[in-house]
């Protein structure tokens, strides 16, 4: 396969870390660091993702290093799997650095049941989840919202759902930021964005979003697993979705607004999709408020799906089918954080926050071992639970990867194997598949992604997060 990344000079600093020095291109303001071992390096240089990493390093106020996680691949403007921090006082904020699906993220639910004890119920569970969780954009939401309710979702996040009986009091502490970003400003979200989101709360969406029924196959760190409430053989559910059309419209709106406003701030870009303005500017503040509001919508979306999943588990498994939230973490966000005694806006696009032990933003019960980090694999492959580390705070602004990372385009994946064959392959391995559009299975097939075991191995060896448990799928629900 041809390497298309521009001829960038690089230095290998360790078996899992490569540096692209600031001298690689004259407009770089900081150096870039790429987490990849010898096996993954050829894969991360197959597309333009490293050119995009370099582009990000040219943005005003960028500080430290721009990081690429081992699952990095080409995105729009910023690469997916990219982490960059900008000084809050003089740096920028960029919608492209967050992505279209604001607060796309992952939530892990754990039952108290052993998967082997309900083996004959897995098909019923997956089938009922598929029927009960609206997947596509047009099937309507599980929770239609009035204007006032939508504004409360955007402004308050999951706390509103406690009032509505869709979340328990003990759910909120196990969600990043307690399921509510206080900087949210519903008034900064356009009517168009609200119109797109109004009937989408509690829906899964298309693309790579899914709900999986899984089993804990292996535990690597007994202490952390026990603290997270996980044990070998346990039945779990992983939810991967985000802010749906509402978040997409917020991104679309602000890319255009910033694209128009940039010249007033003297910002010139190597790529228009990097549109940005200073964080302290009128446009920057408005975007941050709108983005946090969209993120609250995403937390609520995963919460309503959780509520639906709980009802399904109770229906199929009875009173033993209770589901507890292990954690819920975003992987498309910009957050105001303090690193190295400096207030910075950390952009994580396709990257998971991975705060180490003792951090005050990690839920108290988990603080001893570090924040839970979830790395879903591609459809039909393993997912991982990891724990954030102290080293990550210095080595990646407290971040780890977010998945396996695409290795080829959707079109290329379809050429290799049709969806019908992908479905047969999964079913042959005993995985129950519910996906109404078989051709789409081909786009998300395992061969379209990097090897999640190899990606997580680099994260673990680099010390960005340490492996706690490996989960394998029993059933998958897709749009």
């Amino acid at each position, binding site marked *: 396969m041809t390497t298309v990344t521009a001829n960038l000079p690089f230095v290998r600093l360790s078996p899992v870390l490569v540096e692209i020095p600031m001298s690689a291109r004259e407009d770089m303001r900081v150096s870039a660091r790429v987490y990849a071992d010898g096996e993954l390096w050829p894969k991360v240089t197959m597309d333009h993702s490293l050119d995009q990493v370099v582009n990000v390093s040219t943005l005003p106020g960028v500080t430290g290093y721009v990081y690429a996680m081992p699952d990095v691949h080409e*995105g*729009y403007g910023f690469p997916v799997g990219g982490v960059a921090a900008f000084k809050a006082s003089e740096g920028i904020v960029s919608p492209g650095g967050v992505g279209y699906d604001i607060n796309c993220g992952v939530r892990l639910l754990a039952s108290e049941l052993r998967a082997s004890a309900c083996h004959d119920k897995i098909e019923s569970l997956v089938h009922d989840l598929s029927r009960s969780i609206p997947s596509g*954009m*047009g099937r309507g939401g599980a929770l239609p919202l009035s204007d006032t309710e939508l504004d409360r979702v955007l402004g308050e996040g999951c706390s509103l759902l406690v009032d509505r009986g869709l979340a328990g009091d003990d759910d909120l502490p196990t969600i990043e930021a307690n399921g509510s970003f206080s900087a949210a400003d519903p008034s900064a979200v356009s009517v*168009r964005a609200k119109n797109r989101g109004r009937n989408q709360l509690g829906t899964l*969406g298309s693309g790579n979003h899914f709900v999986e029924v899984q089993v804990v196959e292996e535990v690597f760190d007994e202490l952390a697993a026990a603290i997270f409430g996980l044990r070998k053989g346990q039945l779990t559910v992983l939810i991967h979705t985000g802010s749906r059309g509402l978040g*997409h419209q917020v991104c679309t709106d602000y*890319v*255009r607004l910033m694209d128009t406003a940039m010249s007033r701030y003297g910002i010139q870009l190597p790529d*228009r999709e990097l549109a940005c303005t200073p964080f302290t500017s009128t446009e920057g503040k408005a975007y941050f408020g709108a983005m946090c509001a969209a993120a609250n919508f995403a937390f609520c979306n995963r919460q309503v799906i959780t509520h639906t999943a709980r009802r399904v588990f109770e229906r199929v498994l009875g009173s033993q089918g209770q589901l507890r939230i292990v954690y819920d973490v975003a992987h498309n966000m910009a957050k105001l954080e303090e690193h190295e005694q400096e207030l910075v806006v950390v952009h994580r696009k396709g990257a998971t926050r991975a705060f180490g032990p003792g951090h005050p933003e990690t839920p108290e019960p988990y603080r001893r071992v570090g924040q839970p980090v979830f790395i879903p694999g591609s459809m039909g492959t393993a997912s991982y639970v990891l724990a954030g580390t102290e080293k990550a705070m210095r080595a990646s602004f407290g971040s780890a990867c977010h998945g396996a990372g695409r290795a080829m385009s959707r079109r290329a994946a379809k050429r290799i194997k049709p969806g019908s064959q992908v479905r047969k392959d999964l079913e042959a391995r005993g995985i129950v598949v519910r996906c109404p559009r078989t051709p789409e299975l081909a786009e998300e097939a395992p061969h379209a992604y990097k090897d999640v075991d190899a990606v997580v191995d680099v994260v673990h060896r680099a010390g960005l997060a340490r492996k706690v448990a490996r989960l394998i799928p029993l059933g998958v629900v897709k749009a």
Partner: protein
Amino acid sequence: MGALFAEAGSALSQLLLRGAAASRDDRVREIMVSSPDREALLVDWLNEILYVAETECWVPVQFDVVEISETSVRARIRGVPVREAPSLVKATTHHRLQVEEVEGVLQGEVIFDL
């Protein structure tokens, strides 16, 4: 340029309908889009079509461009009602965006977020 925009709209509508047969209704509506430049106009035009399709369950399929300049377009559109709003395409991006004349023919290239 009007032909390019009409063609781009048709291409998007085919993606949204995923090849499903659908009957056009009698509605004719007008859409207007303004943008800072020609490339942005193409992105905003396609995003407008996406917005109409998603929020109204009505996929525009026929585009009669009435007025067009480098920074604005006005068109009359006809469409087909759909039971489910299209879910394949979520946004039009600026990634590798190009509108250029090649051997006397205007060509545009956009990448959609799926």
